[in-house]
């Protein structure tokens, strides 16, 4: 008998006025009772609408049925047939626009809490004592993976399971990509990311950190001199954009990437960190995506009074609804229809404030999206001693400029077909490097697809 409650089991969380002062995880996870109770809300629909909303087609009703039976390991096995990073995706996927948006229970009341159940299953598995993994039988072929974000990790994992000798080359000193340097500890504990990486190493994957492909070694050199038969590029979209307004290079102005990297990768939030950070007393965050929410919530935790300025309205905020909700609860201010035009300075060259122009929304254009347009002569200044620019990123041109014959879009995205094949034979790409800034699950899916294509390519060579 299904549980016909109209609402999800609530996720236990740290209280807002407690958590906005620490970096520990906000959401605490279901108990076993809550998980089973929630799983019983699933109707096990024959046509599985939720699965059509999942970018990697996890067999959602099948794993939920196992949760309802209390067979959590079996549930885990079902998820990992399609996903390499369940503990990560259960936490950061925008389920509200994917699987859960298609769930029939959502027609009347709330959808099944698919993401929370995924997280529960993955955490429960990760808490089990390590069982020694069996190393796959080597097949004698070498593949290089560039970048250790979700796309690279997924590609490396699938290939290693097939017996390939995989080396992941990572520019930074730590693997994980955005999962390590971008998404904060309070949303995605770094121990989870490291656990995934340890899992890959146990499968025999070599991870070479401190290697900037294009500088330390090129793709052509890897293929010509080091015996790699195929290469997967999962280098992400890490190049920060700035607004090109006066005052943007003042002291106290950060790109969100720099701010978050100092905090997450370099642990600058810890009192004994060797890397400094300056969130000021009044921080203004420019932008409205997940990255802006993360920067804002970090600045809040470092003690600043935080305001997010966004040039459209709340309805257009691209960030996940849950993140916006969490940010508001934590006491972060929002100023909508507000567009910075200049950052003003103190005599010493530090930020003093942000001059903004009032905006209004135009009639929706052909694409249905209303454009923000400036209101004439309506300017005002917001006081600030820290400004964080979070207006997007694009792919780094380094790999394109050092790889002969690798075609990219005008904006820098690597051109690849649906299996990830680029304009170069044997060279595949996926994730943000191809699509521009997107999501963890899409990057992971692209890595898995490319792994299958690389396997086929090498086996048929």
């Amino acid at each position, binding site marked *: 008998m299904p549980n016909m409650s109209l609402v999800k089991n609530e996720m236990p969380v740290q209280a807002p006025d407690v958590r906005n002062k620490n970096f520990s995880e906000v959401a605490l996870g279901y108990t076993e009772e809550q998980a089973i109770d929630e799983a019983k809300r699933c109707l096990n629909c024959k046509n599985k609408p939720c699965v059509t909303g999942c970018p990697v087609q996890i067999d959602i009703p099948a794993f939920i049925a196992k949760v309802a039976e209390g067979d959590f390991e079996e549930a885990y096995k079902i998820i990992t047939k399609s996903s390499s990073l369940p503990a990560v995706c259960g936490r950061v996927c925008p389920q509200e626009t994917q699987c859960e948006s298609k769930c029939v229970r959502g027609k009347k009341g709330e959808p099944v809490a698919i993401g929370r159940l995924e997280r529960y299953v993955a955490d429960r598995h990760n808490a089990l004592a390590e069982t020694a993994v069996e190393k796959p039988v080597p097949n004698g072929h070498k593949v290089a993976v560039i970048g250790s974000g979700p796309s690279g990790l997924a590609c490396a994992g699938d290939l290693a399971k097939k017996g390939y000798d995989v080396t992941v080359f990572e520019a930074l*000193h730590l693997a994980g990509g955005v999962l390590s340097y971008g998404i904060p500890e309070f949303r995605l504990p770094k121990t989870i990311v490291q656990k995934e990486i340890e899992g890959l190493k146990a499968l025999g994957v070599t991870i070479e950190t401190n290697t*900037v492909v294009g500088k330390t070694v090129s793709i052509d050199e890897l293929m010509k001199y080091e015996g790699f038969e195929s290469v997967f590029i999962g280098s992400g979209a890490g190049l920060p954009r700035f607004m090109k307004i006066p005052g943007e290079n003042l002291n106290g102005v950060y790109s969100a990437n720099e701010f978050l990297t100092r905090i997450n990768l370099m*642990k600058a939030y810890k009192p004994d960190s060797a890397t400094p950070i300056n969130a000021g007393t009044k921080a203004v965050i420019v932008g409205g995506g997940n990255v802006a929410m993360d920067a804002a919530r970090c600045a809040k935790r470092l003690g600043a009074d935080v305001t997010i300025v966004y040039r459209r309205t709340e309805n257009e905020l691209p960030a996940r609804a849950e993140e916006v909700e969490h940010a508001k609860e934590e006491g972060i201010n929002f100023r909508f229809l507000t567009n910075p035009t200049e950052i003003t300075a103190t005599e010493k060259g530090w930020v003093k404030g942000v001059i903004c122009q009032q905006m209004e929304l135009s009639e929706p254009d052909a694409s249905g999206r209303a454009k923000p347009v400036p209101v004439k002569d309506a300017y005002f200044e917001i006081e600030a001693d820290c400004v964080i620019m979070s207006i997007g990123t694009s792919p780094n041109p380094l790999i394109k400029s050092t790889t002969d014959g690798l075609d990219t879009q005008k904006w820098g995205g690597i051109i690849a077909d649906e299996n990830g094949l680029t304009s170069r034979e044997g060279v595949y790409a996926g994730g943000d490097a191809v699509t521009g800034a997107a999501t963890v699950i899409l990057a992971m899916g692209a890595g898995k697809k490319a792994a299958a294509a690389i396997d086929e390519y090498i086996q048929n060579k």
Partner: protein
Amino acid sequence: MFEILEKKSLNPTVTLMKINAPRVAKKAEPGQFIILRTDSEGERIPLTIADYDRSAGTVTIIFQIVGGTTEKLNHMNEGDCLHDFVGPLGRATETEGLKKVAVVGGGVGCAIAYPVAKKLHELGVEVHSIVGFRNKDLVILENEFRNASSKFVLMSDDGTAGEKGLVTDALKKLIDSGEKYDRVITIGPLIMMKFVCRLTKEYEIPTVASMNPIMIDGTGMCGGCRLTVGGETKFACVDGPEFDGHLIDFDEAMARGASYREFERKAHEDACNLFKEVK
């Protein structure tokens, strides 16, 4: 991994280390740099590649002890390993078409200037090196510079080494005496580079300045190293570190360099105290 194979003190505050880093050594060119961390909790700091040996797989760095991380680095010894060492980063010095160049270095900037002078010399370019230090105790790489230059001028603020005066005085004298340079390359404190560039602008001599802003990743990912060149924002780690000296906004660069002064002062004191306790 990145073992310190050799350590040599060049003066009380400047140390040379030879590091085992085969991949970096294979690709290194003068003008490029590396980023290192001493330990798993360390800060990432950029240092110029002072020299390299492709066949031995080694890279030489020369650093001045100015703060917490360089202090820690200086306490490491031969046989110890650096936790991280990544490079070569940035663009190499452009040497094409040059016939006669003045290399103007100041303080520890000379460690960055030396490999450039050496490379130019090896390419058959006529190199005039003008190097300045506060006093004779701080002089580094004097012989190395002499061997790589057809003219060598040593300056000090107090006159205890070479001539008394600033590098700009020496450069002006050489230019006025009729030396015609295709390019001036300057590396040192921002204030020195600013005045070198101001001087060469008057004489319309193309000038390159090597910038050393605060960096984190060194791959173009954070934008922390940005500076304004000719009215445009550039990232020193990927677009530089060398830029047209006549277009750089030095005042902005100086302000940005001071972003974390208070934190750095404290970190240095802590590091010094730590090592005192250990002793």
